[in-house]
């Protein structure tokens, strides 16, 4: 079992960096192998919305930059973790620049799944998904949006298990530890 952390922090967000360090430490303690990618340091151009990753070069984005590498790592891991500050209830632009480039992990073809339209899977297995979002203070509406967003993403990404946790910058160390543990509780070996 391994993991991939996509850290969508904006530059100088020392709190999210601290959360990243604690999560990596906890995963290390559990004997898991993996890596964190600090997305703001990577050149990942925005998705062009061209769908060529579905039809022209199936499974591979036509933009040749680090976005391809991230998509590859995303499907090859057992456990995918997103770290983001919560922006209006959603993800940061840094996290999203990578996620938008990952639709080639799905097939273009539609199907009815859970009585809704979704895409067909391209691969035999998809990773579990945990998303940690940070907020300066509680915000009931944005927290609700964020939680629903992760749930919808898990459905569209075929995550066998998923979780989301919201950490406030004012949380004490023990509270943060508890939230990290709960977030990581869904991790597992999707290769069986």
């Amino acid at each position: 079992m391994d993991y991939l952390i996509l850290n969508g922090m904006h530059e100088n967000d020392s709190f999210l960096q601290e959360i990243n360090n604690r999560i990596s430490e906890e995963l290390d303690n559990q004997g898991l192998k993996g890596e964190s990618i600090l997305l703001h340091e990577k050149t990942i151009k925005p998705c062009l919305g061209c769908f060529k990753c579905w039809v022209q070069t199936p499974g591979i984005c036509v933009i040749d930059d680090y976005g391809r590498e991230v998509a590859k790592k995303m499907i090859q891991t057992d456990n995918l973790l997103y770290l983001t500050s919560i922006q209006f209830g959603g993800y940061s632009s840094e996290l999203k620049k990578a996620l938008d480039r990952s639709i080639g992990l799905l097939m273009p073809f539609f199907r009815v799944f859970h009585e809704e339209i979704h895409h067909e899977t391209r691969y035999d297995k998809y990773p579990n998904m945990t998303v940690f979002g940070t907020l300066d203070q509680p915000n009931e509406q944005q927290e609700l949006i964020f939680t629903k967003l992760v749930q919808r993403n898990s459905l569209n990404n075929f995550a066998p298990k998923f979780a989301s946790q919201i950490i406030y910058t004012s949380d004490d160390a023990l509270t943060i530890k508890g939230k990290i543990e709960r977030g990581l509780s869904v991790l597992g070996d999707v290769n069986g």
Partner: protein
Amino acid sequence: MADQAIFLMCSPRGEESASYSLGSYVTSLLEEKGITINEYHIYKTLRNQTKIDEMIKSVNDSDIIVLSSPLYIDSAPTNTIKIMNIITRAVQEEKIGKKKRLLLAISCAGYLEYYHNNIVLQIYEQFAKTNGFTWAGGLPIGAAGTYAMNTITSFLEQLAQLPEDDPRYEIYVKPTRILDSVIKGAVEYLSQGKVVPKDELQKLEFVAMPLESYVEGGNKNWINWAEKIGTVEKLRDKPYEIKQ
């Protein structure tokens, strides 16, 4: 009464996008009401600091903001988030002053069901709230690709002769007429400085065809495109599969 509006066109597909087709329909109707429109294609705007500054000034001067964006992975595309962050910073730095501004959002989803847009429209509402803009409402568009290929006006013209018992009437004519009338109503409210009533927007909450029909039609489109460029055999490739 509103005098000026800014159109934030948030699709990378430019004028070929559904976001442009629907957003520009709204702004052209606002223009007919005597409202001045400033249009920004944010993928271009974001490449140029002078354009960004100009866009901020235009938000400052506007009474109405029309944000029209594709739906990417159940939420806003990276550049739509960036533009919201830039505007938020400009409000904090008082480059955008306090006054009544209405925000109307249009979200264009690929999937048939309108409700895939529900979360992102709530995100745009939070963006409005954070910045003291008045949330005028959101238009959740399902199967938005239809409007990337046709403007509402040209589509209705093309389909004008269809008899009501033609199956395409239910699937295309009826929904487009509803959308047309909701947009026209919305423009009426906005131009008077009012929010669009919820029950008006709720008229867009329909699923125009059986899910299976959409799946079948959509899948045919992918195959047709692949046939044209000779990639049908490769469509199910797994380039990143780990070889055991």
